């Protein structure tokens, strides 16, 4: 029974991973790629780890998978924000069809 619940959680996780990586290849800009791939791959990997925690019968694998899921949930958005600020300050332009740039507006007001 627990294996069935685990597989039901693992299959959407791998599908989210594949969609995020297709977004990483297909989108036109650094910021679009960052948004699509980071959100999809974080959700997919957390679903996969919780599915592994359900599907495995021994205790240590489940405990370590849950710890790893919490760790990825904390660190992945932090890394994404750091990459976004670093790439903006290193001079990468936005896509020419992007319409809003809040960071430049805030710096203009100061």
């Amino acid at each position, binding site marked *: 029974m627990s294996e069935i619940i*685990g*597989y039901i959680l*693992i299959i959407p*996780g*791998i*599908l989210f*991973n*594949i969609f*995020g*990586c*297709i977004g*990483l*290849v297909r989108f036109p800009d*650094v910021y679009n*790629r*960052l948004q699509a*791939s*980071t959100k999809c*791959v*974080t959700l*997919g*990997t957390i679903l*996969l*780890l919780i599915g*592994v925690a359900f*599907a*495995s019968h*021994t205790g*240590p*694998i489940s405990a*370590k*998978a849950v*710890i*790893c899921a919490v*760790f*990825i949930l904390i*660190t*992945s958005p*932090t*890394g*994404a924000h*750091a*990459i976004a*600020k*670093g*790439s903006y*300050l*290193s001079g*990468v332009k936005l896509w020419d069809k992007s319409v809003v740039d809040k960071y430049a507006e805030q710096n203009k007001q100061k």
Partner: protein
Amino acid sequence: MVTLFYIGLFLCCFLCLYRIGRGPTAPDRTVAIDILGIVIVGFCAIQGMVTGKDFYLNIALAWALLSFIGTIALSKFLEGRSFDE
């Protein structure tokens, strides 16, 4: 069923490697390296579930830590500052 899991994760890894090789700027490669690290954590978890050994999850935890530290270091390098600011 397990073979399908491996095929899906291999597809993710090859798409990330395509973006690392092809990416026009340095932040593209940094994003792809971050995503590749998270995908490999999932890969280690699947391997631990299949073989029933728990040291693969230790590898996954250490890989998540090193990937996060590498991402932060690369983003500070892109920002143009030194590491101790």
